[in-house]
């Protein structure tokens, strides 16, 4: 059984943007794409731990603000020739409210 935690309304995350959720295990970045899909990744780039929540979001990807590694929002995997992966979390949206399974 998945344990869903309420995060906040979808509108509180900007489109093509992100907000951070703090947890005892570190920050989690909540992303919202231009088509209003919501994803969640551990807020550390696999490269040098850059805060992915601060990157530029396009399609279902985010470019890390430190060295422009491009991370897939769905899997947390680095794209292209770069190799690395960050933890991803299941999310769902119900009645405009984001839930995450930590």
């Amino acid at each position, binding site marked *: 059984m998945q344990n869903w935690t309420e995060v*906040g309304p979808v509108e509180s995350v900007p489109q093509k*943007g992100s907000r951070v959720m*703090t947890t005892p295990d570190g920050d989690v970045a909540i992303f919202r*794409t231009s088509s209003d899909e919501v994803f969640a990744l551990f807020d550390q780039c696999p490269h040098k731990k850059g805060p992915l929540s601060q990157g*530029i979001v396009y399609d279902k990807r985010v470019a890390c603000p430190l060295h422009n590694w*491009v991370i897939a929002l769905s899997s947390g995997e680095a794209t292209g020739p770069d190799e690395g992966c960050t933890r991803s979390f299941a999310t769902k949206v119900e009645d405009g409210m984001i839930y995450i399974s930590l």
Partner: protein
Amino acid sequence: MKEKLVLIGNGMAGVRTLEELLKLAPEKYDITVFGDEPYGNYNRIMLSPVLAGDKTIDQIMINDRQWYIDNGITLHAGKKITHINRVRRQVETAEGEVFEYDRLLLATGSRPFMLPLPGRDLPGVISFRDIADVDTMLETAKSYKKAVVIGGGLLGLEAANGLMIQGMEVTVVHIADVLMNQQLDKPASDLMLNELQAKGLKFLMSHETAAIEGKKRVEKIVFKNGTEIDTDLVVMAVGIRPNIELAQSAGIHCERGIVVDDTMQTFDPKVYAVGECVQHRGATFGLVAPLFEQAKVCANHLAQMGIARYVSSITSTKLKVTGIDLFSAGNFIGDESTEDLVFKDAARHVYKKLVIQDDKLIGAVLYGDTVDGAWYFQLMRDGTDVSSIRENMLFGQHHIGDSGHGATNSVDGLPDDAEICGCNGVCKGDIVKAISKHSLFTLDEVKAHTKASASCGSCTGLVEQLLASTLGSDFNDTPSKKAMCGCTSMSHGEVKNAIKDQGLKTISDLMVALDWKNADGCHSCRPALNYYLLSTWPDYQDDPQSRFINERVHANIQKDGTYSVVPRIWGGVTNANELRAIADISDKYNVPTVKITGGQRIDLLGVKKDDLPKMWADLSEAGFVSGHAYGKSLRTVKTCVGSEWCRFGTQDSTGLGIKVEKMTWGSWTPHKFKIAVSGCPRNCAEATIKDFGIVCVDSGYELHVGGNGGIKVRATDFLCKVVTEEEAMEYCAAFMQLYREDAHYLERTAPWIERVGLKSVQAKVVEDHENRKVLAQRFYESQERSQDDPWAEHAAKQRENYIPIKQVG
């Protein structure tokens, strides 16, 4: 059902088109490929290194058979198409098999031209075109001694070199008295001839072959002047002819090649053609770079995006023939309307010739020292006015322009462990290995795989040189224009024009109108587009999500995810009250590091994102505004104390610096913009390495532009001298506005001025008084909307964006 695309010709141009097409529309077509040769797709340019024993066939394969399988492409290697039925849209093989198509792509390439000489069918007479020819040469070299190469062009010399390395005694026969007469003039050819002779090649210049003789196989060649020479092998390398027979027999309009329009479409709209078989606006092609551009355009139309046009441009040849460096481009012979600049040092085997017409560079031949080839080529393509650099340009870019990389000029001599990219620690060996291993062709591919030149970009020239020397031969993938990013084929200039011409007002409108490949763009084009829209339309609504984090939150992100905060200190002049306020705020927010910056400001490092708005509110209250230390914008105006205190000062440099900073702060620019004002020619404010520098003198103000410290120090160019402060400020506003409107995003003033030429800047800002006033006026108007302090605004209205959406546990 998918449409059927048939490609005839499994060579570089055709397969490159497929690769481009798969990127754009991977699911559109069922693709079938026919190739004469029983291999996958290989790099024909690399046959010379195979002959010379430097590479094996496996090493020059671009796409092996697995690639075709992986991409769902049916490959018929070794099957020859002999007939096209355009009415039924079918192609037929020699064996009578019939295949249907909806679109047909012809990439039949070219074949070597064989002189119609008696004896040309004798065994031992071959061309130099494919793997089979190379095999024949290698085989012959094992059991025979003497070889003759007919044709002293690029291909002929490479063949001769390879055969010599295989142990044969080689004579090159050439009809003219200039080797490589498509690329060289007589003096350059003479230098090369000497060097090649010293290596052991023999030459018969101005010799025309009359006949090839022999009983069972070739034995000798007879010349028109009556002399003859014994030989066991004849390689004909006298030129290529487009393969047009198949197209011709199908009734497709051909002249010297298959005639195509700017969309690479032939006379039959269902049939496209690319590569060496085509004729475009009267020209045929033999180098790789134009073929790759054609492939891009053709793929765009096959994918029915319908926006690309092929425009043939000047091509350059930078080649390494048997270890000899030469570069040539454009019209290097010249005529009565042109002027030559010539440098010759026979002892060093160096020769350079530049051809100039109407103050523009139109052609170049370099022999022995080709380091500046890429730079000359750039000047030619940009049509830069070279009159101001004319007296030194022959000696190379490092005598004039300095916006590139400094110390290292040639990569060929460097050891494998030499660091090329200092930002990412990438060595020469890593780059060369990646190029060969992953078959990389372009700078972008090298960037993606190795990270070399992916950060500050100062080693870009070196990486390009490595690409050229690793791929060797006549490879030069310098596109005539540089696409903005992978999302479009349009250049920065084209996008900027489209914004104005088509009245595009938002990023999403622009991406739709200009057929952006990714609906959201990417991290590289979005900030550029946001800037272009913002600098074009006064009422543009800024898109924070298209800004890099530093500009989005008005602070510089640090390696640990904290930020640095730099309040503006006008002209670098502060007082005890301001310093006290900064000290108190530093205490309040536990700022771990307080640092004086190079631009005479105070940097508060290690601030948490949540604290930013609170800290800004406190700074606002103490009278500070944002210092824009994070932005592509006016950074600082650095000053010395000037006439107010200094015994040498000639004018009030601090006062003027403060006025200039009050005028320019808050403006967005293509890249960061720094200003300095020095009170006398001792120049303590270092104004001559700033984007705009003012040096006060007793009689007025000297204005300097286009300098920077940083990666490669570049001293400013002298713009002009003015008499009053008001003039100095007006020129400053006009220069900044011209830069804002004209430069590409992320292009600093130094490379911008080197691209457009100082003369053109002077013409618009200094000589044309009316234009200067108009430019300055536009700057003032734009500033009326730009000088609201973003810190005060964010602290008051946008605090939500700086705090977590939720806290758990």
